[in-house]
């Protein structure tokens, strides 16, 4: 009942003291949250209060995705943070909540890491039931239910930042609903939502989505969500399908495309570095922008030295730099001329450019048929 006393004090005294907080944060792993939480529910925050590093609120449960609580029941939930939340009442909110039982009380698990305000601790959801296309049964797997709720929010809500957060969360779920959600978004009328949908599909290696993006310029490149498309190509799209490589090659060598997308395509080509990527990389050796030339040098070197394809899952462990058995083009010289990224290249770019141009001239006939 402490929070109610706090609300009364707040209202009586007219306090409006805010305290500053700042610090880094990011999206928490939804998989870890789902495993840790005892209760996952769609619910409405009816009233609550925050002061110092603590928030307490009453939550009315609407749909229970995990846990034995009854829809329609209410619980009191507490959230503790190392940050300073100031002192204020919590506004009503509807969202997806991850909650852990601690003895007889309930503790909120934040969907955002770091010292964040209360508004970042849950995922906002639209009012009402889940739309037909994403409707699910209570007996469906938890991943499907979570994906359905998030997809429904992505399609139905227009809150700054939410689309990006949902995109990041959806991507962590292995559910067939995820691709359906991305597909739905990619067909939305708003360019921003379409961009998020395409980004999600591209992250999953969808060549058709990558091709479709090229038909959406310049409108799509003007929305903030376009950055999600760029990072999807830059960091995720690693299809070695020759058709995908050709499309990336067209993106990277097209001077009329938004430069971030061209750079991202060049980086993807470097990361993939199949034989089919080499003609495009060779062209980029003569590109006017050093961002493109650096990627070209790196890609040629990665091919010649038979390095693995760089994917999101082999960056932290550096396995993409692990020398496999030497390839047919691997020599001491190709190893000596492996250089990826600006720091390795900016001081002596000409030496690397000359080497790889000459290498391509020597080997082109063997590699292009």
């Amino acid at each position, binding site marked *: 009942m402490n929070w109610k006393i706090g609300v009364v004090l707040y209202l009586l005294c007219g306090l409006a003291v805010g305290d500053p907080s700042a610090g880094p*944060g990011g999206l928490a792993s939804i998989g870890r949250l789902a495993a840790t939480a005892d209760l996952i529910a769609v619910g409405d925050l009816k009233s609550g209060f925050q002061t110092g590093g603590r928030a307490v609120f009453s939550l009315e449960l609407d749909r229970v995705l995990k846990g034995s609580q009854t829809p329609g029941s209410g619980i009191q939930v507490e959230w503790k943070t*190392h940050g300073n939340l100031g002192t204020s009442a919590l506004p009503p909110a509807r969202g997806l909540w991850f909650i852990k039982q601690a003895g007889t009380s309930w503790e909120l698990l934040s969907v955002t890491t770091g010292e964040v305000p209360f508004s970042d601790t849950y995922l906002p959801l639209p009012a009402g039931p889940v739309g037909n296309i994403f409707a699910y049964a209570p007996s469906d797997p938890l991943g499907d239910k979570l994906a359905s709720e998030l997809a429904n929010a992505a399609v139905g809500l227009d809150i700054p930042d939410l689309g990006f957060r949902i995109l990041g969360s959806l991507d962590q779920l292995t559910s067939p609903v995820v691709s359906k959600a991305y597909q739905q978004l990619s067909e939305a009328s708003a360019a921003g939502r379409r961009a998020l949908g395409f980004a999600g599909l591209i992250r999953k290696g969808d060549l058709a989505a990558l091709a479709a993006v090229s038909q959406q310029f310049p409108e799509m490149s003007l929305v903030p969500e376009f*950055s999600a498309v760029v990072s999807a190509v830059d960091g995720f799209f690693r299809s070695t399908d020759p058709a995908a490589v050709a499309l990336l090659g067209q993106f990277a060598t097209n001077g009329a495309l938004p430069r971030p997308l061209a750079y991202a395509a060049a980086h993807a080509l470097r990361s993939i570095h199949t034989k089919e990527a080499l003609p495009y990389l060779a062209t980029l050796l003569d590109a006017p922008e050093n961002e493109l030339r650096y990627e070209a040098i790196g890609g040629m070197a990665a091919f010649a030295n038979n390095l693995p394809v760089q994917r999101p899952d082999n960056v932290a462990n550096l396995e993409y730099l692990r*020398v496999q058995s030497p390839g047919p083009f691997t020599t001491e010289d190709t190893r000596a001329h492996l250089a990826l990224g600006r720091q390795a290249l900016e001081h002596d770019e000409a030496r690397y450019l000359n080497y790889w141009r000459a290498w391509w001239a020597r080997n082109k006939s063997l590699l292009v048929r």
Partner: protein
Amino acid sequence: MARRRSLLRLICAIVGTVLLAPTVSVGQCSDGSTALWASRNVVRQAGNQVWEYAQSWVEGNYYLYWIPRVTGTVTLNGQIHYGTNTAGYGGIATTQWYDAPSSVGVGLYTIYGFHEYGSDCGQYQYQNTVASLLVERPTISGPNATWWLGGGSDPANGYYNGATLTADPKGAPETPYWSVTANPSKVSLSCSVCTNSVVASAQPSAGCQWDVAIKISVGGLDSNLFNFQVNQPSYLVSSRQPVDTAQGGGWYSKIYYNTKDMCNNYMSSIALNESFGGWVNDQANNWSRPTAGGASGFTDYEWFDGIWLDCATCTPPTMNPQTPLSASAVDHVSQSWRMGSAVVGSGVLVQTNVFQRYLDHARHQ
């Protein structure tokens, strides 16, 4: 007797010697006990020493009536040795060589033996033998890179400042000796005479390139150089436009970043922290100042600096984000970002910017 000879032949086959029965003699220079022996082998005596030999001799009641001779030829991608030796009556004819693979080379060492036996009774016998041994350089296997994170690791997020390399002596009897032959100041080895050595980072490489070389040696025979590099978080890129939302009567600004490494790859989920210099007021204010913090455990590539202030009674009072945003600066501070640790001040410095607060939002400049 026949069983004993069969047993003898079996033993000969195992130890690499060859037994030949003498032909029928004119006089009495042999009997059922006479055996014409041939032996040859290539033996790795040490990591960098190979012994090739061929021998001929005779045993039995009449061995003193026989003169054995042997001609040996050793090849390694072509002939490298040739020699003949003839023993006296009852002696052992031997040709042998000792080679250092570090100077002669590695590959398939083969000795061909031509064994001859002549007796006082006019008998002449010969036989050919061959033996081979593949001598390889020792090898190193394992990751070709590790991280420099300012001296520590970030195990919760899968970033380590060391890598275990494994030596394969390729048949050499010695325990491998490890050394760093290029840029030894950038890494350290956990042991120098061992099979598995952990390479720990001490400094970053000069860019994403193999500028560290490691080798092992077995008795003086070196491995090929093992290419290695020390990667590090390198720089931040703005991942998208900042988002400013109302927070009570104030504001909440989120400034988004991706972290890239020296190889220009996104780094996911790495621990990070901020630190502040001295604050400077742009106008008179009593705004409280945040303390520096760190974060770890986020997923995906994107993280943000979240800054908020809700203080209607402050001077100046905070405002909800306006359209357009206010240009009225309140205060600023130098802010540094380090990667690889959530502890303030630890990790690799990747960016220093000005953290600027306005009436209704905040920005990095």
